[in-house]
């Protein structure tokens, strides 16, 4: 029987187990690769990205119902969606403000769209950093901080060089991080399926 009665640790464990199936990483990876199309393919509508953003959570929910919950059971976490969305928007605004301030002090024209495009890998890196810092804090799993370091370092690294086109950095960054996330997700999913066999029928319910 569970011996640890530290509520904080129990909450972290429950959250950690809700994200350890790797599906989130796989679908974030797909979204990143799909987003590359916006920068790479002429006529690629932003609605395609929105379609992926709508379609992906539905698919994730269906896969969880089929492959995850019969193995681990289902728990609805206590989440304040409004607070979470407000936090994400505030964080995004903070990153934009920091970048704008840096451009203002370092460049002649901080409103130049090419400058923003050139530094967009750093912006996406900062977004992933925020996401995975939050997951790391809530799950108590230090592994997620590795993603933070990689996302931020590669984002900044691809923003610094002067490529022929300001789009080059983001065109390399999105598929790179997308592939890293998908591979990570596949490894996590395989591990999850191996160590969590489907529960016997008679122990599923009262």
């Amino acid at each position, binding site marked *: 029987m569970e011996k640890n009665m530290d*509520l904080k640790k129990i909450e972290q464990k429950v959250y950690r187990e809700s994200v350890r199936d790797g599906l989130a990483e796989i679908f974030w990876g797909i979204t990143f690769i799909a987003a590359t199309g916006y920068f790479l393919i002429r006529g690629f509508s932003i609605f395609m990205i929105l379609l992926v953003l709508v379609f992906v959570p539905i698919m994730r929910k269906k896969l969880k119902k089929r492959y995850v919950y019969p193995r681990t059971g289902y*728990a*609805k976490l*206590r989440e304040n969606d409004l607070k979470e969305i407000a936090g994400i928007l505030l964080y995004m605004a903070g990153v934009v403000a920091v970048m704008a301030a840096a451009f203002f002090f370092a460049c002649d024209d901080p409103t130049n769209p090419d400058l923003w495009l050139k530094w967009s890998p750093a912006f996406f890196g900062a977004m992933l950093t925020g996401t995975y810092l939050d997951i790391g804090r809530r799950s108590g799993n230090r592994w997620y901080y590795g993603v933070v370091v990689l996302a931020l370092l590669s984002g900044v690294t691809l923003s610094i060089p002067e490529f022929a086109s300001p789009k080059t950095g983001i065109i390399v960054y999105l598929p790179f991080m997308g592939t890293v996330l998908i591979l990570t997700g596949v490894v996590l999913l395989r591990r999850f399926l191996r160590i969590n066999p489907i*529960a016997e029928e008679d122990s*599923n319910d*009262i």
Partner: protein
Amino acid sequence: MISNEDEPKSIADIDRIIHEPARLSIMAHLYVVESADFLFLIRQTGLTSGNLSSHLSKLEAAGYIEIKKKFVDKKPHTMLSLTDAGRTAFKEYVQNMKHVLDELPE
């Protein structure tokens, strides 16, 4: 011998329904989520199916948990959650236990 009246109030206030280790584990896990199913509690608490059922019945009889049954794909599916009374009782239990432990001599 010390009579019950002489015991510090917080010890007398320890909720015996929650104090049992298996039920404490169930309450703690339901406290950190909004609701959970039977299989989730088995996996998290390490209790057997029969043992868990028996403790859930006691917690339900005390009014601490709510059990909702429904059918999903023609199979029974039970969702469990703490009632408001259960949430309050658990908070009080944690506070009382902290108080009792703080008062113990080193």
